[in-house]
């Protein structure tokens, strides 16, 4: 079947199996491997993407269900050479180690800050509670999101500028 959706601002149409999961559509059909897969049971949240601005576990949604919607993945977080403050915050506060849960965590954080620009710690913890990180013990993820909340202006990316 043909599905059409907007991914990171670009409209895409692909012919896919009806049973194709959104996570596999993004990763394999579109080659956007920044979205990860971790559990199959909607528990771990490494596959979180934003659908119309809301965090969705892409292992639990079919590509077909997302037709007509706007999807945002980690690849769509930076605006050209400018990092999202959430991305900058994760580097500043050591919010990642192996990096596997990071895209999902950052997108949930982005959705949270869009909704609530200055959340308290309990709100942040609740927002990311549908996602598992095995490396950080979460405190630095919380601090990363707090850093982003305190620096709402998009941060220029040294990496992109010098690259």
């Amino acid at each position, binding site marked *: 079947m043909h599905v059409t959706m907007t991914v990171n601002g670009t409209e895409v149409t692909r012919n896919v199996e009806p049973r*194709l999961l959104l996570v596999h559509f993004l*990763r394999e059909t579109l080659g956007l491997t920044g979205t990860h897969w971790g559990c199959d049971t909607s528990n771990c949240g490494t596959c979180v993407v934003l659908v119309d601005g809301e965090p969705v576990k892409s292992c639990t949604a079919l590509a077909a269900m997302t037709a007509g919607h706007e999807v945002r993945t980690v690849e769509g977080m930076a605006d050209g050479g400018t990092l999202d403050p959430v991305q900058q915050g994760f580097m500043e506060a050591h919010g990642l180690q192996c990096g596997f849960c990071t895209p999902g965590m950052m997108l949930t954080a982005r959705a949270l800050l869009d909704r609530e620009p200055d959340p308290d710690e309990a709100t942040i913890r609740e927002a990311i509670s549908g996602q598992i990180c*095995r490396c*950080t013990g979460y405190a630095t993820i919380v601090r990363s999101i707090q850093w982003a909340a305190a620096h709402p202006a998009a941060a220029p990316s040294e*990496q992109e500028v010098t690259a």
Partner: protein
Amino acid sequence: MTTVQERSPMPQEREPNPAHSDPDRPIGYGRIQRKEDPRFIRGKGRYIDDIVLPGMLHGAILRSPMAHARLVSIDTTEALAHPKVHAVITGKDLEGLNLAWAPTLSADVQAVLATDKVRFQGQEVAFVVAEDRYSARDALELIDVEYEELPVVIDARRALDPGTAVIRDDKDGQTDNHIFDWEAGDKAETDAVFARADVVVSEEVIYPRVHPAPMETCGAVADYDPIDGKLTLYETTQAPHAHRTLYAMVAGIPEHKIRVIAGDIGGGFGNKVGIYPGYICAVVGSIVTGKPVKWVEDRSENLMSTSFARDYLMKGEVAATTDGKILAVRTHVLADHGAFNATAQPTKYPAGFFSIFTGSYDLEAAYCSVTGVYTNKAPGGVAYACSFRVTEAVYLVERMIDVLARKLEMDPAELRLKNFIKPEQFPYKNKTGWEYDSGDYEPAMRMCMEQIGYDDLRREQAEKRARGELMGIGVSFFTETVGAGPRKHMDIVGLGMNDGAEVRVHPTGKAVVRISVQTQGQGHETTFAQIVGEELGIPTDDIEVVHGDTDQTPFGLGTYGSRSTPVSGAAVALAARKVREKAKAIAAAMLETRPEDLEWEKGRFFVKGDPSAAKTIAEIALGAHGTVALPEGIDGNLDAEVTYDPPNLTFPFGAYICVVDVDPGTGKVKVRRFVAVDDCGTRINPMIVEGQIHGGLADGVGMALMEFIGFDEQGNCLGGSFMDYLIPTAMEVPDWETGYTVTPSPHHPIGAKGIGESATVGSPPAVVNAVVDALAPFGITHMDMPCTPARVWEAMQGRPTPPV
């Protein structure tokens, strides 16, 4: 040896480096952002499932639904008829290649694909190769396997009973489920001390089966080129070089024709040390089909079949005087190794380094014995940041110290302080043969107590108890033993536990360091660059760390048991020092002076008494590769390599205190506060050190309160998904509070001891001690992990049951 105490609740800010004027280009140790982060925050990491090769096929494994059954027949006809299936491989096919069984890391064999029996639920039975991952899974449904059920052995305590089903009847002469007996310490001496002791406490202590469950499951992409006979194997591995050697030994492919590539690894924690049947199946699949084959397991496969951790049933005993002097510890352990003995540990240590169960205390005697048994459960055993079973050892001794404290009606912190090995006793030889390199325990303990406000908490607890509220304070103090290890004592399947490093300074003064260890999130690309930078005065940004590719890096045994910094970090530092010595000779030639007239300051050599006559490391590098007339015996580069054989292990330590509140109505445990004071010797990047500790603390809370791989009577795994195997989220853990002391290792080139597993080792007893402390009004002296609400509630009813 000096002990520097500093408190750092938050990582310290970037330290200015006097040797360099540009604060944006830091050199050497200190808190700096990680070099690997820019790719990860953009979603540009390259994990196993991100690898796509031209023409690549996908593999899937059919697994046994039964825990113990005879394999009667396998019919693959229908699966082979699937239009997208390229191959179906069974154990019989592998027998023809002599690959149906593979050696484990513990002198046993493990079935790659079952031929005679299945021995645990989830065991590999057949491998399908198809055009895409969905078709491969579809085809699994088309394979028809007939099983003849056999009695299962699930309870390790029953494994050796007469008449019990023999799991490993494939092994010649194996007539029961016994694997090994092992002991350490002096039994007679220990028994004598126990016989004359005023007080003896004993407790059955279980460290249940848990699983490392890294967020990325295990997988491989095998690409065999039949023309030149070269196998390129992308793998989730913590030990690429050891894997390559083992593949060469097992598969008969010459070692120089195997290239193992470990890209970005989404967490390991020991889960990615061993070689799993799926990896071998991917290789066979690629050889059979002539195309690259990807195999990535799903979460249930990961939890049910790959290396579990713990599963130690321990009888702990402590002998002491009535005034609280601990005299001796004694234990017998029943170790459940599952269906194949596949633990990853040094050859001479079938129970890992468990004999460090003497802990941080100065004892008169100690004795432990360990019996390993087979059961119908997944194989594995040394995983989940356990430091080769130090986790089990520390949990036992720290739980038992609290049992003793209760018996003596002493404060558990005071009891520990009274019995610590004193700073002047280091290097300290314990009663089971370990030589603790350095330590200063009391300041760490005092710092932890002060930081958490120990005395105030005890007062608060007394008030709450009077009101019927359940609050617990749990103390633990651990000594780790990491950095394996000296080759005269330690090898894994015959490979000495050493690691190589190679440092090259390019003509323009930029450097590359090639290492044998494998990051899984620990930040090697940053830390190892900082070590080289510290030694050579080169900015971290100008140093590239290469790892994870056997074609590009020197041989070494990889990353597990917190060994990267203790072993590979030493190799890197010494290689950089060799470069510096060479640079000195070249600088002398350039400055027309003698090497002994030169002095080093970070980044340059200058003539003693004339600092203006100097050559920077970049100038020397250009000279080395240029036209400078080189001194005798110096060749034209600025490179060096070292393979490091550690003279001893390193012994990080720490003091942890946990505060919990228990809901008397539901038994739910809330971790209110957790203070961790760690000493890992020299801290290269305090931010990364702190991150390692935080992760381990969350592991500890998870194991103490939630995580558990259980089985029912038929051997069905009850922890086979994240719906059942519970891992802490941000809601279950507190905001960690940390502090540190610095007691360098005297034998390590930079004094670093390693930190990767300290918190996983030290934190479970702090949490459980806190829970048991909270439940003291119910007369409970011990309860086993996991302290789930249901199990805590049962304990409150006077029925603290072992986990099943």
